[in-house]
């Protein structure tokens, strides 16, 4: 019997437009659409993409619970055997939406669901323990390979054939332990690993420990009235003309810009170069991302000490975690040297 698959995509991959359509509510379309057409080819006669549900990324991320329920209701009405979402590559909002859809399907419909995310997508950390996530490239340039890997895993899930480790089956570890039979006993394998480690050779643990990198909260500001506060943003707000040529996506650097004698960020002097959201509103009034006017008012009233004379800016979309960490470290170094006490970081 042909198995039934429902596919979830965002407004962009449904062919409904980019950021200007990101506010749109869920829509159901019969059959395959966008990347679903290729999935259908890969799945062959085994399974049919009976419907595609799509939704605008902003609508989903800003109304998480109600949208999740609505999308789930639409998916359930087709009585699928499997749900595929994305791939969402390194897109933050889309990755969240795919994760929410897959987790809801897994937990509430009790059928398997899978998506494809770049390993640094925040959705991986949030959802990887609950759903099947195929590691894919960071952008849609990797679509072809992503769909092949997702299609292969989908076929296995539909036939209930998952036998190997997460890595062998092509999805990111869900942190579950599984029993396997080996020719050598545990003592032999452990000694071999220890010897490999001793000789600096590669080896693979059979029991990976979770990695937690949490920074404990810094102590609260004691004296707001005496504090120097700095503004940082990942919304790409820069002086008009983007003097440091910060990339619209996958930023390689950040900029530092003077706020001296400015009371307000005007649309004439500042703009956003961020490639991951509709910039109409911030370009009309950059204070909607860098709240300079409000801070100046509070500074005049003596609510806090003073605003640091520069603000820092970069573009957060598609930017590798390694770059973001470096920006953070370098910004912190400058703030420390200049005696700043606390930071307000705004993100879009």
């Amino acid at each position, binding site marked *: 019997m042909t198995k039934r698959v429902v596919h979830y995509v965002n407004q962009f991959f449904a062919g409904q437009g980019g*950021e200007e359509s*990101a506010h749109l509510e869920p829509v159901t379309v019969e059959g395959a659409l966008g990347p679903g057409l290729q999935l259908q080819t890969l799945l062959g006669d085994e399974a049919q993409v009976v419907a595609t549900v799509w939704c605008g990324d*902003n609508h989903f*991320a*800003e109304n998480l619970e109600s949208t999740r329920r609505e999308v789930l209701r639409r998916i359930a009405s087709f009585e699928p055997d499997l749900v595929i979402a994305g791939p969402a590559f390194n897109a*933050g*909002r889309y990755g*969240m939406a795919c994760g929410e859809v897959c987790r809801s399907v897994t937990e509430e419909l009790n059928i398997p669901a899978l998506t494809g995310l770049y390993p640094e997508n*925040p959705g991986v*950390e*949030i959802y990887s323990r609950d759903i099947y996530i195929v590691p894919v490239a960071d952008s849609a340039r990797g679509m072809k390979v992503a769909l092949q890997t997702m299609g292969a895993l989908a076929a296995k899930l539909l036939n209930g054939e998952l036998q190997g480790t997460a890595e062998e089956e092509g999805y990111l570890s869900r942190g579950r332990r599984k029993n396997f039979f080996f020719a050598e006993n545990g003592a032999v394998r452990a000694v071999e690993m220890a010897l490999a480690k001793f000789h600096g050779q590669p080896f693979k643990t059979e029991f990976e420990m979770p990695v937690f*990198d949490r*920074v404990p*909260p*810094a*102590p*609260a500001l004691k004296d*707001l009235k005496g*504090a120097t*506060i700095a503004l*940082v943003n*990942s*919304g790409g707000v820069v002086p008009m003309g983007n003097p440091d040529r910060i990339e619209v996506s996958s930023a390689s650097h950040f900029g530092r810009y003077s706020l001296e004698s400015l009371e307000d960020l005007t649309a004439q002097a500042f703009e956003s170069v961020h490639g991951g*959201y*509709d*910039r*109409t*509103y*911030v370009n009309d*009034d950059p*204070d*909607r*991302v*860098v*709240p300079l*006017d*409000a*801070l100046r*008012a*509070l500074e005049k009233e003596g*609510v*806090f000490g003073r605003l640091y004379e520069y603000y820092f800016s*970069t573009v957060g979309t598609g930017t590798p975690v390694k770059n*973001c*960490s470096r*920006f*953070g470290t370098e*910004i*912190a*170094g400058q*703030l*420390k040297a200049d005696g700043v*006490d*606390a*930071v*307000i*970081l*705004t*993100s*879009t």
Partner: protein
Amino acid sequence: MVKEIERAGFPVVHIATIVPISLTVGANRIVPGVAIPHPLGNPDLPAEEEFALRRSLVERAFRALTTDVTEQTVFND
């Protein structure tokens, strides 16, 4: 960025609309923004009300910065 700036010893408040992502990147003090394309504003409001909204979010950010927290905390009001 939030995490590395905090690691250097600064209290940081993250004003962001998608709170789950802010939690994932490791922000310890979070103030939810208004909407993704305008976290500190609302183009549907008259200018004065929009400014008041922005000011209240910044004041909430100050409250976050002056509050000792032991774990990731979302300042919803």
